[in-house]
């Protein structure tokens, strides 16, 4: 059964090469002294220094981090509630519509989400005078909305998978629903909540299209700065930025993998 299939390993290797060669190139070129991508003129960290001194980019990055943290937290709350509703509430009136509204943002093209949210904000401003000016708030609301779907799916699948006999036992012993939730359910779904938050954070940090539609004159996020710089041509500064992001993500994922291994180690049923 477990016969080695050499072509299968080859296909997997080729797939990883396709995924990682462009990334390796970014990392390599970020240390290249030359501006040309085809000429290696020596190791240098000058692009990192240039990045550090690029004030508009740093400012945009800080703004993006702030929006990402706020919207991930909002999406965590809404997505957890939505995931619970879908996994635990069984049949309720309007469930089909609710399910559709939760999962559709996962695949909805970004231009549609962005345009429709902008038009909502414009219509609301006309009707009730809020939001007065588009910017950080409107981007955050838009990001909460589309990231909620991802959190809901992660939480829902965790809830569907896990064994609810522990909760029933607590209930039989007289624990109130809130106590059961706090002492049993929450610790059990904590890993799903953590990965849901991180997913929402990353999606927000990475979003160009929805932010471009819903932003105003005062708020320029990191992807917006990167995008307009890219239109003018490749700059090694952006390679340096890519390398930093890759390094942070790699470290975070390695830590997450270790933690997951420790958590699910010997006690896994």
């Amino acid at each position: 059964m477990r016969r080695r299939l050499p072509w299968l390993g080859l296909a997997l290797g080729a797939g990883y090469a396709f995924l990682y060669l462009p990334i390796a190139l970014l990392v390599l070129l970020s240390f290249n002294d030359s501006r040309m991508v085809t000429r290696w003129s020596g190791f240098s960290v000058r692009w990192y220094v240039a990045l550090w001194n690029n004030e508009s980019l740093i400012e945009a990055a800080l703004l993006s981090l702030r929006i990402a943290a706020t919207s991930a937290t909002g999406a965590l709350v809404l997505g957890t509630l939505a995931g619970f509703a879908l996994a635990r509430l069984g049949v309720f009136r309007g469930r089909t519509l609710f399910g559709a509204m939760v999962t559709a943002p996962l695949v909805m093209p970004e231009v549609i989400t962005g345009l429709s949210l902008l038009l909502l904000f414009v219509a609301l401003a006309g009707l009730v005078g809020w939001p007065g000016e588009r910017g950080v708030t409107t981007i955050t609301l838009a990001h909460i909305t589309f990231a909620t779907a991802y959190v809901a799916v992660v939480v829902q699948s965790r809830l569907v998978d896990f064994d609810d006999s522990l909760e029933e036992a607590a209930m039989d012993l007289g624990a109130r629903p809130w106590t059961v939730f706090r002492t049993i359910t929450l610790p059990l779904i904590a890993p799903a909540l953590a990965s849901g938050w991180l997913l929402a954070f990353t999606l927000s940090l990475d979003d160009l299209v929805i932010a471009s539609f819903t932003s105003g004159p005062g708020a320029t996020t990191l992807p917006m700065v990167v995008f307009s710089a890219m239109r003018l041509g490749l700059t090694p500064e952006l390679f340096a930025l890519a390398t930093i992001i890759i390094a942070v993500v790699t470290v975070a994922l390695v830590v997450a993998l270790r933690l997951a291994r420790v958590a699910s180690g010997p006690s896994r049923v």
Partner: protein
Amino acid sequence: MRRRAAIAEGRLVRLLVLALPYAWLLLFFLLPFLIVAKIALSEPALGIPPYAPILRWTEEKVLTLVLNLGNFATLAEDPFYLDAYLRSIGIAGVSAVLCMLIGYPMAYAIARAPAHRRDLLLMLVILPFWTSFLLRVMAWIGLLGDQGVINGLLLWLGLTREPLRMLYTEGAVYIGIVYCYLPFMVLPLYATLIKIDPVLIEAAADLGARPWRAFLTVTLPLSVPGLAAGGMLVFIPAIGEFVIPELLGGPAAQLVGRVLWVEFFQNRDWPMASALAVVLVLVLVVPIATFQRLSATRGL
């Protein structure tokens, strides 16, 4: 008594759990679509916002509803728009198939790898997705450009005399989409493949089926839900893709997402952009409904 109180409390909790996300999604997801549909039916105007209201008071103080079907007529008549839709559907469809061809062997190999390695192998598929999408697209500009790495290599090896045109072609758009969406194919495929009971394949082998035949008659049919879910996860968002055709595609790659962007940001024609969005949603209704049925039955 206590039991009744507990039931009442349970009801309250249910209501609270449901009310907040339900209200949020109605306000920020469903209502915006209705507004898009409304604005698609209004006339463009100079001003802020740049469209005329569809409900207006005429000079005789009568409230009238002015619907403008002109945008939809333009979409139907001007071959530029029809072409953009057809080209987007074609490119998204072919990209989904390419993702299946590349992603299936990967998912299959990961599912058959020793259990302790699977987490790491899967993580390696997901990792690029967590890094910046824009910057990964940028890497392809560096690879495919006239003065890029691949052309530099080809020239240096003497395989070509002048640089091959690879960037700003349709091929570059395919590469970009497949590259960015591949994880969305591998993950659902892996999830279905790992659930297939190996006993079934052993049974097929015991009955004399060769490995290929066992694969074609047992594994492949059982993995169809994963293929379909992955296909939808690539096809649907790729149809409206803006960034990849904009940065890798050159002026000829007029896909719907890009056309909509230009109508909105450059022409400031909000009603036309809305009409484009409405038609795109109509095109996507069936694929999205299929995706939802798949994710409802599998819990994704």
